């Protein structure tokens, strides 16, 4: 009962933070705007303000929310999956793999769209998926699956992908600003196409994750125990690995690599409301999204220009994470 009120209270706080965050995102920007302008937009539908408020600021805040939610959900799944607090989209190699694909695309000079998706996004997606599949297959020896091997192969494959990415960037120094985008992340150029590209994946993955959350709780007890309790362990594991990859790769394909979110947000939530995955997934997604809305707000207002958002997430996230850890005992 007590945890229930605690969860409700947290949910309420998060929703308030979300609404406030969205509102500040709408009003804050290089062009000075206030409530009156927003009101004018609603009443008169002024086209300049519509572009600024809806096409630029709102799309940006929503994309930040979606990417934060996707990365945090991906991290929450992976940490449960590996029963390892170190796990996250980066550790398994998804993010590095996805950014490798995107940069490869720049290197080859491919710049077309296929049914609304840029080739870069498709490449990012495919190579993120390829790396994880490879890592997954390599860590299976004679049908026995080893978590340590998977994590270590993931780290090695991720390092290889990053090195190749850096190499291509070095060869093509002319597109340096692209490199900064793919390696440190940014929402500066977000648009509605990107949102429509990410939304279906996120909700699909979220529903599946929520559906299988009970099985995830069983997996934590160990595969043998889970199996004996009626959980189809190997297929559940495959599904979880697939959706966490999907979530991370689709995020990277629209916003570049944004570090720290997928790793720390699930930890915050676990510290706050406990390890039950049925709630962990929802709260992680919500918190991750809100965290990125505020981080992006800082990234675009702190200096005259834009800061890569990866800097903000690490600077804000790491100390808070350490603080929470120290409070736990």
């Amino acid at each position, binding site marked *: 009962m007590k945890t229930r009120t605690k969860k409700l209270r947290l949910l309420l706080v998060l929703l308030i933070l979300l609404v406030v965050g969205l509102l500040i995102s709408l009003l804050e*920007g*290089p*062009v000075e705007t206030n409530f009156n302008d927003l009101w004018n937009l609603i009443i008169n539908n002024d086209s*300049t303000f519509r*572009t*600024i408020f809806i*096409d*630029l*600021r709102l799309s940006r805040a929503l994309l930040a929310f979606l990417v934060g939610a996707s990365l945090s959900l991906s991290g929450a799944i992976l940490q449960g999956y590996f029963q390892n607090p170190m796990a996250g989209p980066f550790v398994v190699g998804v993010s590095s793999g996805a950014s490798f694909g995107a940069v490869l695309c720049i290197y080859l000079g491919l*710049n077309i769209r296929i049914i609304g998706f840029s080739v870069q996004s498709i490449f990012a997606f495919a190579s993120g998926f390829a790396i994880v599949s490879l890592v997954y297959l390599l860590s299976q020896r004679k049908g026995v699956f080893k978590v340590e091997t998977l994590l270590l192969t993931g780290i090695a494959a991720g390092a290889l992908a990053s090195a190749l990415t850096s190499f291509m960037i070095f060869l093509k*120094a*002319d*597109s340096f*600003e*692209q490199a900064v*985008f793919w390696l440190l992340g940014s929402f*500066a*150029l977000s*648009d509605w*196409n990107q949102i429509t590209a990410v939304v279906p994946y996120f909700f699909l993955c979220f529903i599946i994750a929520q559906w299988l959350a009970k099985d995830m709780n069983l997996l934590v007890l160990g595969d043998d125990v889970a199996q004996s309790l009626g959980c189809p362990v190997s297929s559940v594991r495959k599904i979880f690995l697939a959706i966490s990859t999907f979530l991370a790769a689709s995020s990277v394909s629209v916003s570049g690599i944004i570090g720290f979110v997928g790793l720390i947000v699930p930890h915050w939530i676990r510290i706050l409301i406990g390890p039950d995955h049925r709630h962990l997934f929802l709260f992680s997604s919500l918190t991750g999204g809100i965290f990125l809305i505020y981080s992006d707000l800082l990234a675009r207002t702190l200096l005259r*220009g*834009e800061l890569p958002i990866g800097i903000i997430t690490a600077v804000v996230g790491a100390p808070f994470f350490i603080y929470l850890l120290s409070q736990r005992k």
Partner: protein
Amino acid sequence: MKSKKIHAVFLLTFLNAVLFGSQQKTIKDDLAFPFVMTSPPQRIISLAPNITEILFDLDLGEKVVGVTRYCDFPEKALKKEKIGGMIDPNLEKIIALNPDLIIGFRGNPLRIIERLRGLHLPLFVLEMGTNLETVFIVIEKIGTITQKEEKAEILVESLKNRYSKTQTALRNVQHEPRVFLSIHGTGLWTCGKGSFLNDLVEKARGVNVAGNIPRKWLHYNREQLIHDNPEVIIILSKSETEFSKVKEWIKNEAHLKGIKAVETDRIYFLDENLATRPGPRLIDALEELARILHPQFFKEER
């Protein structure tokens, strides 16, 4: 009553087509994207310093409403609204300025260009090319889209005149000195085959020591530089003070002492803003560089 109204509308549309329709023309920019020309643009945003310089030279200074934070020439450009940099122009500011023409170039990130197009902004993107002659084409193109063809033609004509004058003065050059171009202050950053700076050195009858490396910008190897033994070192910098700092650094670098240019003190200053912007002032840079490399052919002028 109603039909009269319809007739009036028809008549107006017809008149409109007759009077203004002929002016509506579609041309393609250097990314092959169509650009619809209607009346002469009144609110222009420039996404690069050389474009700003060309616009001011075409007497369009009054119509320029936004420039980058690097647009510092002519002085009047400093007073214009800043829309950010070349690689990080701010979309909000651009939209708020309500432009009817945005001139960008291939140095603006493609992602930005696509985003601007996605917002249905009137964007025209220019390719700056790899040689000096492209400047003439760029000026003519800007003249076309701003409907200042005549002015552009006059400007290009005078620039071409100065260009051929330099070439005539250099026609009897016997020896083309080996040149090392230092850019970006300290360190041995230079330009390779694909840059118009390399073309500038060639047109001034010099040999760029890094001129056979198929990259635009690169960090040169010290060993390689000693081996190439350039006779002249040109330091591109923003100011004389910055130049003397870099010059001091090169002269004090023990490994570089044996290089001919250092021994004979042929280390010269070239205004970075002239040489790195493919605009009208690139010809100034050419004349300057030609004088530095071959002073004997320019004696009578001074």
